[in-house]
């Protein structure tokens, strides 16, 4: 069992974003679907402790999530947010920053390739990239940490079909060859079926 959530609740601004939410997320790949406002992004943020639930319990691989050091946990369980938010500088400097935080060696070309980018992107300033390119650079940055679990929030929302297919192929390969577990939020039921061994529907 990768994650187990029991009766999880989280309030924001006096409103429950999640309430009495139960879920079992297995190792492998899980797609989370549900209407806007169902708390899909919030769920991902809970899983790498960018936020803590107000109620209920979350376990990661059989241990309470809050018993993990949050910094170490986030290097192991990497979240790629929906909106790109890279640091100023080049794509490569972003990858290096992430790799150094995780204490990992960095193969720039291989890491970029796994996110569907070629080596020419290494020297590009992030401010010069399109949103779709930034989104892939965010994925590459997470991969530079060689995480065991990837949490992806709408990873292909800003991509055209060709780029989306490349990312989906890359994710399938990660899953197969690196045994990375993937939890992915998608608004597209087709994509959820293509990528998820397990599909988790969140109630409205």
């Amino acid at each position, binding site marked *: 069992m990768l994650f187990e959530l029991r009766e999880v609740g989280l309030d*924001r*601004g006096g409103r429950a974003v999640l309430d009495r939410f139960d879920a079992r997320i297995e190792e492998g790949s899980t797609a989370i679907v549900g209407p806007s406002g169902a708390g899909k992004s919030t769920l991902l943020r809970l899983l*790498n*402790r*960018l*936020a*803590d639930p107000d109620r209920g319990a979350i376990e990661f691989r059989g241990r309470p999530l*809050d018993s993990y050091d*949050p*910094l*170490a*946990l*986030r*290097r192991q369980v*990497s*979240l*790629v*947010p929906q*909106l790109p*938010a*890279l*640091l*100023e500088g080049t794509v490569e400097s972003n990858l290096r*920053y*992430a790799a150094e*935080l*995780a204490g990992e060696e960095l193969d720039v070309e291989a890491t970029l390739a796994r996110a569907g980018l070629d080596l020419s992107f290494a020297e590009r300033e992030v401010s010069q990239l399109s949103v779709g390119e930034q989104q892939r650079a*965010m994925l590459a*940055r*997470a991969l530079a*940490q060689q995480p065991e679990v990837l949490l992806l929030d709408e990873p292909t929302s800003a991509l055209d079909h060709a780029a989306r297919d490349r990312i989906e192929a890359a994710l399938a390969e990660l899953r197969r060859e690196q045994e990375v577990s993937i939890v992915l939020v998608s608004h597209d039921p087709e994509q959820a079926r293509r990528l998820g061994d397990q599909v988790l529907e969140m109630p409205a």
Partner: protein
Amino acid sequence: MSTSIHIAPWQVAASLVLVALAAAISFWQQADLERDILVATGRSIVQLTLVGYAIKLIFDADTIWLVLLLLAVMVFFGAITARHRAAKVPDSFGPLLIALALAGASTLGLVVALGIFEPTPRYLVPVGGMVIGNAMTASAVALNRLGDEMGEARARIEATLSLGATAREAAAPTVRRSLRSGMITLVDSTKTTGLIFFPGTMVGMLLAGASPTDAVRLQLILLYTLLGSVSISALTATLLAYRHFFTPAAQLREPGV
């Protein structure tokens, strides 16, 4: 510095003509500042007169304890004033109080230790006032910027946290820019001093009949003292205040919580 000049009350009263001119311009151009000009003028008369008497009292008493008390009061009210400009920073009073106290104590301590000024009320009161005043402005500007930037850069900071960065690492670019904006005004005005404007101390000394050489030297000392005080206060305030945006588990706090 034994020079002194005497200003009669009628001379001050006569200068009010220029206030009337300012109010007239505001009225004529509908800038809607007449009321503010009136309040500003009234407050300046009352506040400066009171401070004048307080300083006279302290000079006459000639004891260091009264000076320290006055400086402590300045630090306290400085932190309260600066807090209003740092409204988006949670619990900014503590960092500001520490920043102002540290900036005042260290720079005044240093200029006395270096033998630049004697530790007497005549030096410590005016220099302390300038040091704390400038420290207040710098830390207020820095925290104002910090509050804005932490709001705007939320997504980027959280994305950096999600890589396993510490709060310090995730906030570093923001802290750097806030510190810069707190210091830049004085650095810039130090660059242009004498070219575009004559700083107050120099003007005051020239008016009081001091030699231009003395006026310039004292002004330079004060400018450098202020640079020190401004950097210490802006640095202390930002380094203490950025932490208030994070939980102990390196999570961004929800705004307004």
